[in-house]
């Protein structure tokens, strides 16, 4: 058995890392619910596992998504990840070829040059040496770029480098030392005892007589081993935990597991630890770009959750608009994770909404369509009036669920992390909806729409008013004229990214106005800044966000922005005066062609009766 004391730090580090990783993964494994276990079991021996491995290759090693973002950044990650992977594989091949035995002590391939020096050199060695030197050079180029990125983040397509916690900074510097120390060690060995190819031998000859001697030889191997050992010890507690964890995450995701909104499940823990604080998401966050506030974004949140120094502001200073989820190369569902963390923090917060049981609202009269305006619409009555005239114009048998006093849909409370505390609200609204006996629930607020859709599990159809308008238009119930108004459409976060509704609003607007493009369409839409998920922003900061978003979305020819959310409308409108902010229902109402009232000899026959039977 080949052994030398200098391998001890490496071995100790490696065993420590593996045991910590196993312990962590086992703890997370316990979090798997029975349902999740069956999902994994059923998908284990299917092509999903193959897709998983393929994704591990394309993402964990080649970092294809980072390449798509920025080639230099992609190359840096690829060189480090894939390079190190090759180094290990080729190192093992060389060792087994050199010693002719399949198994050697685990440290031998890493320190092969050291153990190799006394025997004669076969010719095959030169091939390996050449390949190994090339791989090392390949990795060293990545290390150099990593160092350069810290200084000039912009070259790498990053607005700013992430501010790392101390633990990360130590692990980072240790990582930067590993491969230069290996180069040093192999170069000294190659000049003193031969071996190595153009790189190591070249560098070694430069150091001949001066640096390269017995002491530096042994010292360099010790340094290399210690740097590896340290890195392994730090890995589970630093951002590099993402290296092993992302592999697990990719497999779990491919097997079909998803994160939830109010529970830190197994896959949530995997996502939490797969964030490498790379900082790519920071630039998409409007708090960074427009408010220069960069402390509460996803990487920082996960960092403080993992280091158990979470502050209230860091958890709650986030619009949860979902833009960062687009740019996350690891595909972490930041909103679900943040809301689950908020739920965990607010778990014990008592709330007492029993008064909801004994409140007396106006009786909900029966109707086919029930319209829920939502709390926000009480403060933007324009939308409610528009919807009323649209329902009448389309002669729809509708009634209001919250004409004068509304019970909140519950989502703002859930966004603050109080999901179970919001149940009384959900139950109360469900009774009211049941009382109406309606078959369709229309709401003009995307925030309510998302909670009705995802958390109420109603047995009737839930429709956002944009889709409903589209149906009305397509079914000819609404006759509209097209005005020359030049407008742009702002996708509300909860409607676009939150619920995936992009096309319906655009079709509706095209029927009543000329819709212009912005460079923030659909998923790329900007948040208006009024999000209730953020409880830390001051009102002036919200105005800055709103004005910045409006500026980016409009040019001097556009004087009207159409949105589909009362909160966005209120936020944009109260932040400035120049640009008119309209809800879709309002511009539709403006362009309604009133139905002809058909007169007969005896008395005026209301058009609703006639209309129904001739469509």
């Amino acid at each position: 058995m080949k052994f030398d004391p200098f391998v001890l730090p490496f071995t100790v580090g490696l065993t420590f890392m593996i045991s910590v990783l196993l312990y962590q993964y086992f703890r997370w494994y316990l979090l798997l619910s029975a349902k999740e276990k069956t999902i994994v079991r059923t998908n284990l021996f299917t092509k999903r596992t193959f897709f998983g491995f393929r994704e591990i290759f394309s993402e964990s090693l080649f970092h294809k998504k980072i390449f798509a973002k920025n080639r230099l950044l992609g190359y840096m990650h690829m060189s480090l990840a894939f390079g190190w992977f090759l180094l290990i594989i080729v190192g093992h091949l060389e060792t087994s070829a050199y010693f002719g035995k399949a198994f050697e002590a685990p440290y031998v391939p890493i320190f092969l040059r050291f153990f190799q020096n006394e025997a004669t050199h076969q010719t095959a060695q030169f091939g390996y040496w050449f390949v190994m030197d090339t791989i090392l050079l390949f990795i060293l180029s990545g290390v150099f770029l990593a160092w350069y990125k810290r200084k000039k983040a912009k070259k790498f397509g990053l607005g700013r480098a992430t501010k790392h916690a101390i633990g990360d900074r130590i692990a980072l510097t240790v990582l930067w030392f590993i491969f230069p120390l290996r180069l040093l060690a192999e170069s000294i060995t190659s000049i003193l005892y031969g071996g190595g190819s153009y790189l190591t031998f070249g560098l070694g000859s430069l150091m001949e007589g001066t640096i390269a001697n017995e002491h530096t030889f042994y010292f360099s191997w010790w340094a290399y081993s210690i740097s590896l050992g340290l890195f392994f010890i730090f890995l589970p507690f630093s951002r590099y935990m993402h290296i092993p964890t992302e592999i697990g995450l990719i497999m779990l995701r491919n097997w079909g597991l998803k994160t939830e909104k109010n529970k830190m499940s197994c896959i949530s823990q995997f996502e939490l630890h797969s964030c490498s604080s790379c900082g790519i998401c920071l630039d998409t966050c409007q708090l960074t770009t427009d408010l220069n506030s960069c402390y509460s974004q996803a990487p920082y949140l996960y960092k403080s959750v993992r280091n158990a120094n979470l502050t209230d502001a860091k958890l709650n200073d986030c619009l949860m608009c979902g833009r960062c989820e687009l740019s996350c190369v690891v595909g972490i569902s930041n909103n679900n994770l943040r809301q689950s963390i908020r739920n965990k923090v607010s778990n014990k917060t008592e709330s007492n909404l029993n008064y909801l049981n004994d409140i007396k609202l106006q009786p909900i009269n029966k109707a086919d369509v029930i319209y829920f305006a939502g709390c926000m619409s009480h403060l933007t009555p324009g939308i409610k009036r528009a919807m009323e005239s649209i329902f009448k114009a389309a002669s729809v048998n509708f009634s209001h669920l919250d004409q004068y006093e509304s019970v909140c849909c519950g989502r703002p409370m859930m966004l603050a992390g109080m999901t179970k505390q919001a149940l009384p609200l959900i139950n109360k609204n469900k009774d009211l909806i049941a009382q109406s006996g309606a078959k369709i629930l229309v709401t003009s607020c995307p925030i309510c729409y998302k909670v009705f859709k995802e958390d109420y599990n109603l047995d009737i159809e839930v429709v956002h008013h944009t889709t409903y308008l589209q149906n009305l238009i397509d079914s000819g119930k609404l006759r509209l004229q097209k005005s020359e108004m030049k407008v742009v459409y702002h996708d509300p976060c909860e409607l676009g990214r939150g619920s995936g509704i992009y096309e319906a609003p655009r079709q509706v607007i095209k029927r009543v106005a000329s819709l212009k493009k912005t460079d923030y369409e659909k998923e790329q839409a900007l948040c208006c800044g009024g999000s209730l998920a953020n409880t830390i922003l001051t009102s002036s900061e919200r105005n800055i966000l709103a004005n910045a978003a409006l500026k980016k979305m409009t040019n001097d020819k556009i004087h009207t922005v159409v949105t589909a959310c009362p909160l966005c409308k209120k936020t944009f409108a109260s932040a400035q005066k120049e640009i008119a902010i309209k809800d879709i229902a309002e511009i539709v109402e403006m362009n309604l062609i009133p139905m002809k009232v058909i007169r007969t000899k005896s008395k005026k026959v209301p058009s609703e009766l006639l209309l129904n039977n001739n469509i």
Partner: protein
Amino acid sequence: MNHFGFTINKDNTIDYDNNDRSLANEVLSHEPSLYRCIQCGSCAGTCTAGSFTDYNFRKMHLLMRRGEIQHLRLAVEKCILCGKCQLICPRGVNTRNVIRQIRIALDKMN
């Protein structure tokens, strides 16, 4: 002690100086926008919980600032965080965060 068939009325004057206002200072330090409140009542007027119960957000945080926090927990539990108050506050007070900070301070207190 013996009772003569009646109890002595409690003095309902707010004793500002001897009241413990540490909770109020804690909340104010985390949400300084509350300093701007001019007690106009717009928030309490639009409040859903307020229209169904005796809960009054304006009066609640005013009493808190005076150090009268006996009924604070009972009151703050009625808020459904719907955000209507924050939307219309003429002084831009971050009312939802005031509620959250009160809860955090109350939990920290006991």
